[in-house]
């Protein structure tokens, strides 16, 4: 399940999408919007995507994860548009016979998504708004 959605992400549906009777473990990463950024209070966030290319890259990440690790199923769902504080902007789930591979593939997927998938986050503060430049955040997140 590789999707970009503009509504609240349905986590239960994503979990079901990776269930597999031969899987012993599922690792799920849920990225949520923080109420602060570089010491400033964040009011809300908006995400924008180059949708067809983003989906293509998300599919490539899923395929590469399946090549590198013995995993059963992998799902990546990104939300775009306005996302309230505390809500999920990205959910990645990976099922695998053995947990080590689920963890590693899930971490690979989120790390790679943050580098290559054309999606952008804008943070809204009391005194303005700014497109986040992930290069500055490398050390942090």
């Amino acid at each position: 399940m590789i999707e970009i959605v503009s509504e609240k992400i349905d986590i239960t549906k994503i979990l079901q999408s990776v269930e597999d009777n031969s899987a012993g473990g599922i690792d799920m990463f849920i990225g949520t919007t923080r109420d602060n950024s570089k010491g400033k209070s964040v009011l809300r966030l908006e995400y924008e995507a180059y949708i067809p290319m983003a989906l293509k890259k998300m599919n490539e990440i899923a395929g590469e994860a399946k090549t590198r690790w013995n995993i059963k199923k992998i799902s990546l769902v990104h939300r775009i548009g306005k996302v309230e504080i505390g809500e999920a902007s990205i959910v990645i789930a990976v099922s695998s016979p053995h947990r080590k591979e689920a963890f590693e593939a899930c971490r690979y997927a989120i790390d790679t998504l943050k580098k290559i998938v054309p999606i952008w986050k804008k943070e809204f503060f009391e005194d303005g708004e700014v497109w986040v430049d992930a290069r500055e955040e490398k050390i942090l997140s």
Partner: protein
Amino acid sequence: MNINIKFFAAAKEVAGKEEMQFSLPSSSTASSLLDLLVEQFPGLQEWKQYVRVAVNQEYVSLDYALNENDEVAIIPPVSGG
């Protein structure tokens, strides 16, 4: 030749538009397109060294030779997740 350009995020705000048609000398590269875009939108200058160029939804290097009707996207540093 004509190509279609899409702008996203910060680049979209600097250009003031989401997409445009652009006429280029044939055998133009991604690099020469960026130079022309900076001429037209001087605010892009500060982004030039950070943006990546995607052609038909695939990242390309700066020496990539563009073709008629290519879909070219100007990709500022991504921050999804």
